């Protein structure tokens, strides 16, 4: 057997292992494209009502040439709403993931590095956050304020920061006891410099992991809240579509209205989850051994 043959033999299973991640990335890219080019893809606006020649609303029409995915009970085009929904999903997912990871990483770094009363205070805050079930609290807070996308994102951030904060703190605790941190300190580096130059680069992979998890969870939570009727009524997200369909009894009468938002949500969330898995696999080779 030649060298090349051996290399091919060993590389094949590795590619097979990565394939779900690659497929998931392609699917996610498709959703990103859909969100970016929504105005060009969607034939109608998210709230446009279709009228027939007699100026009557085309309500609950099944899929056809005019409306690819049919229409809602108010005569809105399901396909257009489905496309615009990708935009909301991505906005919510990305902003809430970024926000929660920034907050979580900051808390984790400060808490782990400085220790003492700062650590104590921040960790008790994390404990409180862990004690607050998301959906119930989010529903109450949205009832108090006005429902809006910004508020939903804020609530998701508030729910998500706690896990990266705890994990990164634990990582920092282990990092700060290592020789390269002593060396930096002996060389006269300030706390800020040690945190930013020595410790942060070592926890960044974890932050990225929680960023991916955050996108997935953020999209799910927005959909769940919207489905329960606590979403922003001024945007058209998949969760809000499902809520409207559910309330109109479309599960009985109009499958074409229920399936697109539900499937889009499921496929997007599963794709991001698979990316997370693939990333986790690279980050933590021990997982691969198991």
């Amino acid at each position, binding site marked *: 057997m030649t060298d090349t043959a051996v290399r091919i033999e060993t590389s094949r299973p590795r590619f097979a292992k990565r394939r779900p991640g690659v497929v998931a990335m392609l699917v996610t890219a498709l959703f990103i494209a859909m969100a970016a080019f929504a105005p060009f893809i969607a034939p109608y606006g998210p709230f446009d009502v279709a009228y027939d020649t007699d100026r009557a609303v085309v309500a609950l029409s099944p899929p056809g040439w005019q409306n690819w995915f049919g229409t809602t009970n108010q005569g809105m085009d399901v396909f257009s709403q489905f496309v615009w929904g990708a935009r909301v999903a991505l906005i919510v997912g990305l902003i809430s993931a970024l926000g929660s990871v920034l907050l979580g990483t900051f808390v984790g770094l400060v808490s782990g590095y400085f220790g003492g009363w700062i650590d104590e205070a921040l960790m*008790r805050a994390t*404990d*409180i956050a*862990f*004690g*607050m*079930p*998301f*959906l*119930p*609290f989010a*529903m*109450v*807070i949205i*009832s*108090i304020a006005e429902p809006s996308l910004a508020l939903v994102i804020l609530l998701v951030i508030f729910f998500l920061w706690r896990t990266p904060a705890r994990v990164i703190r634990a990582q920092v605790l282990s990092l700060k006891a290592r020789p390269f941190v002593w060396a930096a300190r002996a060389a006269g580096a300030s706390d800020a410099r040690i945190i930013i130059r020595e410790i942060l680069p070592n926890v960044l992979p974890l932050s990225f992991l929680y960023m991916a998890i955050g996108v*997935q969870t953020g999209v*799910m939570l927005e*959909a*769940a809240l919207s*489905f*329960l*009727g606590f979403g922003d009524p001024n945007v058209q997200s998949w969760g809000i579509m*499902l809520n409207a369909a*559910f309330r109109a009894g479309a*599960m*009985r009468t109009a*499958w074409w209205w*229920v399936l697109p938002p*539900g*499937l889009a*949500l*499921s496929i997007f*969330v*599963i794709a991001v*989850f*698979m990316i997370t*898995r693939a990333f986790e696999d690279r980050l933590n080779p021990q997982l691969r051994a*198991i």
Partner: protein
Amino acid sequence: MTGFARYVARRLALMLFVIWAILTIIFVLFKLLPGDPTAIFVDSNFSVEMIERQRALWGLDDPIPVQYARYLGNMALFDFGESFFQNQTVAAILFEKTRNTALMIVPALVISIVLGALIGAIAGWRRGSLMEKTTVVTALFLHSAPSFFVGILALMVFSYQLGWLPPGGMVSLGGPETLWGIVTSGDYWQHLALPCLVLVSREITGPILLLRGSMLEVKGSDFIDILRAKGLPERQIVTHAARNALLPLVTYIAVMTGLLFQGQVLLEIIFAWPGIGRELVVALNDLDYPVAQAALYVMALVTLALNFLADLVYGVIDPRVTYD
């Protein structure tokens, strides 16, 4: 004090602190609610004096610290007052709704744990087999799929299209009301089938993946080699391995129950199950604040209690854990 007792005391103190903090947050939230509770409750023909009297009766004129202290006392004693609209105490309403939620999640939990542990253990033992690969892929899909859409799909297929199962509710109208009456009626089990199936489809993935992982770990340990060297049949070796692999599952059960308890609101809405999550949504829509407030508290409390339990159980069952 032994290490374990100290650990328990510390956990307990932490839990009480978090409960207090959450109660305070709930108090502030409900003080921020728009409008005066009397505005919802009181008829518009009520005179100003009558409203004033009602406010005084409810203690709304007292200074905030007094109201706060009274609130903490009431919550600690589970004295949640009366519902604005239902002619019952909030405690009675919530007790019934919590029981109903348990009636949905407990059967699902039992099935998920038993079946999931079994499947996971077998998958872990047969590492690399087709069965293992299929199980893992299916579990990952079910784990990450949004369960409320799975619920909607199940409802569309099994209730509306095929007409096999009732589309919602816990028992038919005029059905049994006592716990014993409910669980012994076929009606309840028929209503339970769909939500239970949907819950199991997601919850079972946890035990499967967990058991598979810990089984792989146990499989590589020395005592398995010794058992094999002793000439034990494969079947008995698997039993020995599974017993050790079960340890992490025990803690997971408590955490999983807590998550399920707070996360089942979506399925309760979809299947019109009269549980505590649905009650919270209904109370918020009806502006029935005493019910909403107490429901929020009870849901947080159950989660915290189960997390505490998870910490304790872990300490008891695994002698390798030390507390210093």
